[in-house]
């Protein structure tokens, strides 16, 4: 496979994952704005979790709901807006067209066509739920086409590595922004403000239902951390993503018969999460833990690009 193709697959699926994650964060932000008397401060933290606050502040003087949503969904000046990443996913899909089945290509192409149309105009409050649903559905169609039609070979592996690096990054960033409400010191009180924040965290990773199933109705910060960092059943948890990254890189090593530096890095990242208990993490400091996880994840992503010659 061409190095360029591996890179195209990696970024195509990172971008698709990002489109869905961004939509989910907008949804969580909107939900909280509607159900509680929260201020626009919530949108600042949403923008921050999505990693797009800096660019937003370059363009706007104040954070408002409408502007934040527009920036995250439509603005082409924001390279991580849903429209930007979907377009970029499609361009990558074009680049790697020969590596994709017709079904996968058509689902990406249709995703782009539909969203280009939907996001051509400002999204009104009334239309927001429908638009969010569309974004999530389109990403699901691509994933479905991929699972159903693609060979399980190096093409699939690079796509999966991209997906899970992006997803781990997303969950880690949410935790990074909200870590202070998850500290044990905060849990003693369990004020209504905390409850809002806890719900917001779970919603932004579509985990309310999963959490209830696992821990019951009572939401406690320690368990949220446990769930999002260490629960191997939770498909957006850090440990789940890390194991997927490690496994898929491992298939590549087997397939090509060569172990490379990125494989050692993936193993070590995996151990960082899977061999820890939540108490240890709180002892060393949640914020420090997340911070170093993000740094290592970025380094792993870079090393993968190098080892598999994505670029010249």
């Amino acid at each position, binding site marked *: *496979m*061409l*190095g*360029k193709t591996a890179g195209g697959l990696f970024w195509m699926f990172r971008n698709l994952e990002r489109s869905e994650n961004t939509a989910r964060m907008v949804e969580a932000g909107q939900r909280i704005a509607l159900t509680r008397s929260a201020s626009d401060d919530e949108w600042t933290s949403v923008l921050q979790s999505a990693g797009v606050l800096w660019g937003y502040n370059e363009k706007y003087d104040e954070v408002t709901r409408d502007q934040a949503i527009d920036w995250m969904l439509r603005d082409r000046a924001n390279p991580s807006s849903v429209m930007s990443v979907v377009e970029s996913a499609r361009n990558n899909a*074009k680049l790697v*067209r020969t590596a994709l089945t*017709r079904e996968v290509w058509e689902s990406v192409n*249709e995703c782009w066509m539909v969203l280009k149309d939907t996001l051509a105009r400002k999204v009104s409050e009334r239309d927001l739920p429908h638009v969010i649903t569309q974004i999530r559905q389109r990403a699901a169609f691509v994933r479905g086409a991929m699972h159903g039609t693609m060979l399980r070979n190096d093409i699939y592996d690079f796509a999966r590595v991209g997906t899970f690096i992006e997803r781990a990054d997303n969950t880690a960033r949410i935790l990074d922004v909200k870590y202070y409400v998850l500290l044990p010191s905060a849990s003693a009180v369990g004020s209504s403000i905390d409850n809002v924040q806890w719900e917001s965290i779970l919603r932004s990773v579509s985990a309310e239902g999963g959490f209830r199933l696992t821990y019951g109705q009572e939401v406690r910060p320690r368990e949220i951390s446990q769930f999002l960092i260490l629960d191997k059943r939770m498909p957006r948890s850090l440990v789940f993503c890390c194991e997927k990254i490690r496994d898929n890189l491992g298939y590549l090593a087997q397939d*090509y018969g060569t172990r490379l530096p990125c494989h050692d890095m993936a193993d070590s990242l995996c151990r960082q999460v899977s061999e820890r208990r939540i108490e240890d993490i709180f002892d060393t400091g949640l914020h420090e833990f997340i911070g170093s996880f993000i740094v290592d994840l970025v380094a792993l992503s870079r090393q993968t690009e190098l080892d598999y*010659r994505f670029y010249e």
Partner: protein
Amino acid sequence: MTQQQSQGQGQSQSQTFDEMWGREAGLREPYAPFNNWFADEDPARLRRKQREAEEVFRLTGITFNVYGREEAAERLIPFDIIPRIISGREWSKLARGIEQRVRAINAFLHDIYHRQEIIRAGRVPAEMIAKNAAFLPQMIGVTPPGGVYTHIVGIDLVRTGDDDFFVLEDNARTPSGVSYMLENRETMLQMFPELFSKNRVQPVSNYPKLLHRSLSACAPAACTGNPVVAVLTPGIYNSAYYEHSFLADKMGVELVEGHDLRVVDGRIAMRTTQGYQPIDVIYRRIDDDYLDPLNFNPESALGVPGIMDVYRSGGITIANAPGTGIADDKAIYSYMPDIVEFYTGEKAILQNVPTWRCSEADSLAYVLDNLPDLVVKEVHGSGGYGMLIGPTASRKEIAAFRDKLKARPSNYIAQPTLSLSTVPIFTKAGLAPRHVDLRPFVLVSPEGVKITPGGLTRVALKKGSLVVNSSQGGGTKDTWVLEE
């Protein structure tokens, strides 16, 4: 799709030959089963099918990019659901003529870059070659692997009567449009399977397999084992990118860009996830000028530095060979009947459109006297730029063109306006005749010349228009060649 125009204009409708209805004689035989089917069809269903077809094309991404038009960066080429039908007998004759012409073109190219016998014999003037920008001195004395110069050729044909086909242009560089030939057929098979039960249509679907085989058969001396083929594209923003990825996909080969390639140990190698691996045959879809910044345009970022040196030493096959443009140049075109005769010893089976070379005094005088009736083209132009279509031009345009022509006569050729044949398209009001041309695709290898039965039919969708160019409102049709 290449930007070019079919010329011809000004004939009244009664003179025009319609491929379904003839001139006046009534329904032509190849269309009989189709006509029966059509008579029983509900127009509403057909209209629905027409929309469905467009949806399929959009979803598949069979689009072409239009430069400099941001809002419509990707557009569909309109597809018309009425097939163009050619009988097996008509096709056999065309195919013989095409094969003869393509063999002559290859012999001509070999001769031009070696002994230049045709110039010594006085059949083509020396300045036609020496002063021609399409002539590549870098190719002098170079014999491509297998002796093949034009691995893929598109011959543009127009028809004016039952038995009258003319070659309008030879495309010997990087002819495009073959993906439309294949996708148009796929679409028709899906939408109207019953039509294919009623008509015995020769298949086109093995083109990618033949292409792969044909390219593999031209592997260079350095190739050991199964030839590795790759398609070289300028990238996703190129107007024909869809076709490049389509062909790579259907052949099961890599689609590479210049920055994926470099010279490694005297071979061209592509950067894979496991290091550099050599390529044997490169089907390039970039122009000569961009192929190698060390040997041609130093500004080019699309090509591979040093590829020409590897080529000359037998390390890679480039298809089509560099320098083939000298054979499809508009000035050379007028010599094609001589060229065919010189190398094959036979009269050309396919006719040329009569052409006046304005470099010759008598011809120039004639052309200047008859501008309103003629089509005048720039010798080195392409894309329909800088041409005059006399019958539709205003007096002012003709006067302005006359000055240009007088200033540099050798820069122009002139041709009579032809009455291009029509084929029906499906409109709101039912069938309506529209002008068409035809580009069959030809593969050349040491194993022989293979012509896919059919080709790309381009159709001018506007009533009376002779411009089939996709950038100017042209569409495409499925082209059927019936079994004999």
